[in-house]
């Protein structure tokens, strides 16, 4: 969905998105938003990671 | 059921296994210094390669049993024997490292052989020193050690150090006769002809001296004259049989005789110090931890000991027969 943007902007986004999402999960899991969100965050993170690892090939198609 | 007695029995058993099994390893290691011919040294090391490190299991079992079952004694003996115990532990560790390095670095093999030998010799001497220091007496004030860490370096403990070293060398020599063929066979025979009388001489001197420096021993002899007398005779007869069997077939006889001899010695020592776990000051009952603690230890010991013994027996059985001259094969890349 990225239109014709300069590569710097793309790279910045490539850095910011995982960083912010990761930070959000980190804060959640260590309990900043309470125990329930921590457990929820942990479960989403773990299940999401497992699904990703199993489904998505780590390089363009081949292993 | 007298838990302290059972735990003490287990600890004594542990020590006995250790001495009989690690004794000949340490003896063979020390003998490396007397063997200038490199292929023969390799052959000597090959004879103990399959089984040497498993034998230290029993040393640890003894230490840990002391901690769990007789913590008062543990807390007195450790600081009292601080220096010899640490030197022994480091020597044993050094043996392990030099064993590995020796195999992997062929050009430096001679140097590692020397280090392995010195480690074995030092460990043996320290064990004797510990024994002698315990017999001579450890200063105790209440439940604390009250002497100096250098107390154990008196003449009598040094005598015991040499005696134990010699005893291990005898065991080592017997093992070599059992496991090797000419020319090492001849070497082991020559070694035994000299070291066995030497050991007996030192043993008699040590036993005699102990009578005078440790009144507890006199008391023990007066209390169990028949038992101790029988054990002493067993020891001397075994030594005699050993002497007659040197160099003769079947090769297992010297080793068997030597083990009986040493076992008799240990049994005698046990009777002499009983029931003091810190001879001759603290009894097993005063040094004990709680009953349940001892039950835990014994339960674990009952489960684990047969497995370890079974596995060890299996190991020795697999490597039965003479050690092949070219070693156990499988060179290192």
């Amino acid at each position: 969905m990225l239109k014709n943007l300069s590569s710097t902007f793309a790279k910045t986004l490539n850095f910011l998105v995982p960083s912010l999402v990761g930070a959000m999960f980190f804060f959640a899991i260590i309990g900043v938003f309470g125990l329930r969100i921590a457990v929820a965050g942990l479960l989403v993170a773990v299940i999401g990671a497992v699904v990703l690892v199993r489904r998505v090939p780590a390089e363009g198609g081949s292993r | 059921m007298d838990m302290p007695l059972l735990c003490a029995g287990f600890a004594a058993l542990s020590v006995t296994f250790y001495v009989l099994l690690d004794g000949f390893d340490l003896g063979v290691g020390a003998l490396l210094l007397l063997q200038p011919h490199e292929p023969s040294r390799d052959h000597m090391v090959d004879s103990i390669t399959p089984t040497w490190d498993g034998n230290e299991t029993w040393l640890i079992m003894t230490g840990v049993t002391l901690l769990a079952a007789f913590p008062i004694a543990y807390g007195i003996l450790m600081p009292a024997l601080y220096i010899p115990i640490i030197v022994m532990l480091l020597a044993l560790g050094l043996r392990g490292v030099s064993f590995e390095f020796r195999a992997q670095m062929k050009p430096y093999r001679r140097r590692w052989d020397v280090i392995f030998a010195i480690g074995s010799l030092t460990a043996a001497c320290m064990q004797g020193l510990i024994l002698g220091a315990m017999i001579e007496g450890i200063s105790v004030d209440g439940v604390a050690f009250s002497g100096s860490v250098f107390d154990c370096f008196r003449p009598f403990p040094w005598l015991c150090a040499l005696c134990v070293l010699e005893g291990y060398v005898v065991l080592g020599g017997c093992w070599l006769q059992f496991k090797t063929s000419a020319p090492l066979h001849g070497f082991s025979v020559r070694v035994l002809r000299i070291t066995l009388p030497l050991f007996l001489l030192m043993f008699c001197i040590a036993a005699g001296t102990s009578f005078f420096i440790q009144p507890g021993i006199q008391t023990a002899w007066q209390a169990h004259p028949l038992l101790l007398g029988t054990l002493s005779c067993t020891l001397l007869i075994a030594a005699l049989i050993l002497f007659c069997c040197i160099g003769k077939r079947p090769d297992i006889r010297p080793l068997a005789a030597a083990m009986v001899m040493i076992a008799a010695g240990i049994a005698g020592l046990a009777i002499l110090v009983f029931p003091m776990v810190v001879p001759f000051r603290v009894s097993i009952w005063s040094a004990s931890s709680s009953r349940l603690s001892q039950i835990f230890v014994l339960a674990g010991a009952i489960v684990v000991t047969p497995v370890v013994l079974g596995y060890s027996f299996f190991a020795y059985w697999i490597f039965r027969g003479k050690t092949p001259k070219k070693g156990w094969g499988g060179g290192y890349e």
Partner: protein
Amino acid sequence: MSLNPATLARVQFAFTVSFHIIFPTMSIGLAMFLAVIEGLWLKTRDALYLQIYRFWLSIFAMGFGVGVVTGIVLSFEFGLGFAKFAQLAGPAIGPMIALEVLTSFFLEAGFLGIMLFGMHRVGPKLHFFATCMVALGTLLSASWILSANSWMQTPDGVVVRNGRLVVVNWWHVLNNPSWLFRLPHMLSAAYLTASFLVAGVGAWYLLRGKHLAFAKKSVALGTAFATVLIAGQVFIGDLLYGKMLKYQPPKMQAAEGFWAKESTSPAPYYWVILPDQKEQRNRFALGIPYLGSIWLTHSLHGRVEGLKNTPPDRQPIMGMVFYGFRIMYGIAILMFAVATSSLWLRWKHRLYTTTWFLRFLVAMTPSGIIATLGGWYVAETGRQPWVIFGLLRTIDAVSPVPAQTLLATLIAFVCIYTLFMAAFLFFVVRIIRRGPDSAPAHAEASGSLKNAFRPQVLDNVNANAAAGR
């Protein structure tokens, strides 16, 4: 460092136990990793898994060996350096330590030989069983030791009678308040250590363009495990933090670098401090504003408890606890970053080709070990001045051994342990240099029965026996 027997005894114990913990951490982690890998091999019959197994088997064997040797020293050192502690605590934790030793021997006698050397001598299912039993055995051993250490941190189940400790409730001794939180924390630390070791070696090969299949699989597996594990680890870590705040407040007060009974509001999260224990203040402190309140009080303006809440004669040394904690926590954050990056790069199909990430992985190879050490420093220095929290002070537990003797043996330990470490690194580097293709089918350790199970060796043995010599 003064020539004070108590200090020297502590330094000596700290040195030997720090050195020791490196190896069981690796052993516990690698044993589980090997069990998983062998399971994958049996399931998929992909030879690559077998190659990975063999490669790490040798390293595991060596680490296990060094762990055993250094562990032997420790079983005596309780008494050597801290005789009064051994006498007092023996009834309570002696059995647990004994059981740890016995469990190790049980597994070593029974299964380690088969695991290390029995690959062609026993069927694949029995071999896999042996590997699993070894992984289980290391886990059980760790449980016992952690129970013993946790009892020292949060003692329970004992009363003091006539100067001796009497156990009144064994279950409370074993299952003391912190045990079941510290155990999964330590186990995860071990598994994370293995994950980063594996991923790091894989990344190293990828950067050099060698052993590509092995390297890619290693990076994939290592990062996948690390991701799941670090999420769990920081979760458990936070729960454990809460526990220790309740049962051992001085430790957590020291860990955050605040002195005042109540910090400012909002509180920063300190990363660098220069604490002055005598004057009970920081001469210098650098931190991220607001983050202290957010992370430590879960609010924007909460105040954090400082170390002055504890009387000075019961305070641990802030510098040690603080930096131990920051090292552990800082590495945890880096691990979390690796995890996030790995997932993102997977999504973009660029996991094996992103150079900065591979370099990051190589740098993070020993991260698990360093973080584990940091964590243990928090645990042990944070408990000071107690050796059994609230029951026995460390200085009252020291053995009656003079300072010079302690110093001499400390130097001896440092020298000989350096030799052990040199030996270990020598062999590991050699294995890594040679690469997975040359990984022998059986571990290389030369001394002991385990060596005997190598096929060439056993064939010689059988020929020997048959010749009837």
